[in-house]
């Protein structure tokens, strides 16, 4: 074996080992860092495996379920899809347009609470962008909703 071909062989073997290690790291990393998009029904159906891993939960804010404590910046509501509901808890102010009945996506983890009831701890609360644009209903146009403010400073 000449020195160049030995060198080439060593390099190839080293390359294969590095590539294998890299591939292992990458796909291992993918497996544990993939975030699933789930509906409340899918979340509940997944059973044990769903706890404590990153999930995006999509659905509708169940009407009448919103509890907002402005001083503690503490928000609780239920996300509904069909007949399934999941309790969501989040710290921090919700987006300005957040209200009953609207589509939301929450990012976080499903956690077992002390009282046995599981809670979805949200780290990030997003308004769902609906594909089709629908004009806001009367009285929900921002210009009308915030009329008092807009009039307030008429500079």
């Amino acid at each position, binding site marked *: 074996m000449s020195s160049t071909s030995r060198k080439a062989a060593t390099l190839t073997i080293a390359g294969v080992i590095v590539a294998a290690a890299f591939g292992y790291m990458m796909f291992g990393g993918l497996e544990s860092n993939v975030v699933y998009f789930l509906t409340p029904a899918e979340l509940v159906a997944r059973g044990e495996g769903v706890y404590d891993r990153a999930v995006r939960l999509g659905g509708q804010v169940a009407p009448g379920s919103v509890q907002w404590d402005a001083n503690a910046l503490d928000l609780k509501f239920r996300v509904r899809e069909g007949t399934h509901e999941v309790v969501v808890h989040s710290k*921090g102010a919700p987006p300005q347009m957040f209200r009953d009945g609207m589509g939301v996506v929450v990012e976080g983890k499903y956690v077992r609470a002390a009282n046995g009831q599981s809670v979805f701890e949200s780290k990030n609360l997003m308004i769902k962008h609906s594909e089709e644009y629908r004009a806001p209903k009367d009285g929900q146009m921002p210009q009308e909703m*915030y009329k008092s403010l807009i009039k307030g400073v008429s*500079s």
Partner: protein
Amino acid sequence: MTRLIGANALIVALGVTVVGLLLVTFGARRQRAEWVEAGYSATYLQFALVTAATFAMIFGLVSHDFSIDYVAQVGSRATPLYYTVISLWGALEGSILFWGWVLSLLTALVVFWNRDRGGKLIPYTTATLLGVGIFFQILLVGPAHPFGLVSPVPLDGPGPNPLLQNHWLMGIHPPLLYLGYVGMTVPFAFAMGAMAAGEVGDTGWIRLSRRWLLGAWAFLTAAIIAGMWWSYEVLGWGGYWAWDPVENASFMPWLTATAFLHSVMVQERRGLLKLWNLNLIVATFVLTILGTFLTRSGVLTSVHAFTEGNIGYYFLVAIAIVLLLSFVLVAGNSEKLTSDGQLEGTASRGSVFLLNNLFLTAFTFTVLVGTLFPLVAEAVRGVKVSVGEPFFNRMTVPICVALLFLMGVGPALPWKAADRATIRRKLLPPAIGSGVALLVALFAGTRDVFALLAFMFAAFALVANVGEFVEGARLRMQQRGESAPLALSELVNANRRRYGGYVAHLGVVAVAAAITAASTFKTEYEGTIKKGESLKIGENMAVRLDEVWGREEPQRAVIGTTLTLLKNGREIATLDPRMNFYPTSQQPVPTPAVRSRPTGDIYVNLQAFQQDGSNATLRVIVEPLVPWIWLGGMIICCGALISMLPVPGAARVRAAARAESAERAPGATTPVTAS
């Protein structure tokens, strides 16, 4: 009328481009110079026609001609003029039109500057550019036709996407991105031209395309940084990078182009990596097309992806054709692609370049897998997933740290195998620098291992690259008795390519250090406060809510707050974070208030407010060194610009050197330092 001019210009342009492609290709094959010349002229005609269509569109937008369906889609009488003009690239069809225009411009410029140069590769280079042009013009007369007729003509339109009309950077970021993206077509075309002409064994095509590549790379760099800045200024989350598919799409070709910028030097100096370099440039081009596919076909959901119909198939077919043609051409040239040299020693600049390429390729591959994985998972397993930031950070942070280290080692090592004394002399100051950085970072409270390494290696690269300037200038001062500023500027002038590269390295150091500092020391405060109350920020600062106000603008309603920033109870600044309500959007677009200082930013976003204006919820983010990201981007671009500038009097010196003997080597041609 405007509509018909635009539509017909595009159809004629497609015809001209096809004819031009046939003329240059067959002219080159059959050695009919007059055909090739006619084909060259076709590129000018193509440029004129696409320019006419683009101007027709701008005119249509500005004159609110809602009979044009693109105008009806993105135009609105209430939109300010600036945003009306830039909505040219606010949606799919217009952005493809703008893309086609930039490509036709670059094609005409390549022909203009190179048609009289000898060599067989220019006709084939032109053919490649025209071929890519045909692809975009097919899109423009087919699935992305912007000049469709709307009937009946609407009186007004919805206006551009609110996110795209909320900040002036939207007028800067997309054109930079297109110039960078489309610019990558030019070096690719030179590579294809060289392969088709069988002139791939030497570095001719690399020399011809070097400035084009650097220019495209600089534009792409500027575009990525401007995109980060836009995200920071508009999205209200205080971040600038989220591994969003669109961001990844712009970043992948940047990575491969950066790898190419370094690896061509190994080919020029040592005659190695010929095949590898061709692959890199093809990969760069394919990644730009893939990026467009990902963002324009709606296969991935993203902040700024345009969702559209079946245009994706066109892109997939185009990618397949490019890969197939490149493969055939590479295979046909395989005997010319053997290496003629070898690297000297393990501790040489050449081997650092090899490692740099290894890491940059691994980086690209990681980003590619992370970006495409959701597509594969949905197709194969039928689950909807996204690949989170933790994956990208975990995979890429170690690579970034390694690259920072190499960026310091590379410039310090000579091309020839370095002896121990040289290594010690060159690497001792950077090592001391990184030790100091380590102590400072530990003292400042950094505990994350990768953050510590990033600070260390940033300092290492900083000292090593600055050291090259210092050493070179000092040598000139000793040998020629020049003053320090003169020595420095002459040093750079004598080897602009090399020192431009070091300037770019310094920019990368700034960006890396700033990102590390901003993410390590970022602190957030959130609270709901009543008028007159304050929210504490850290030890000695606070923001006081003075007023919640609203105003109506033609295209939107704005709700804002007036805040006073207090330091130790003293008023130091007024801030006004706002929320903008557009009639076409369900949620408001924020305008955070950012107080920037070289030491860092105070970023205030209005999260929510009470309808009667009695209180507001604010999020305050303190992020050190953030402005250095934007500044570092500008330094990188300056470096690229320095590298691109022609060496003064180079042609004259070369001619003189040819005329006289080889031993004559004055001023500009001799690098002063031993390299």
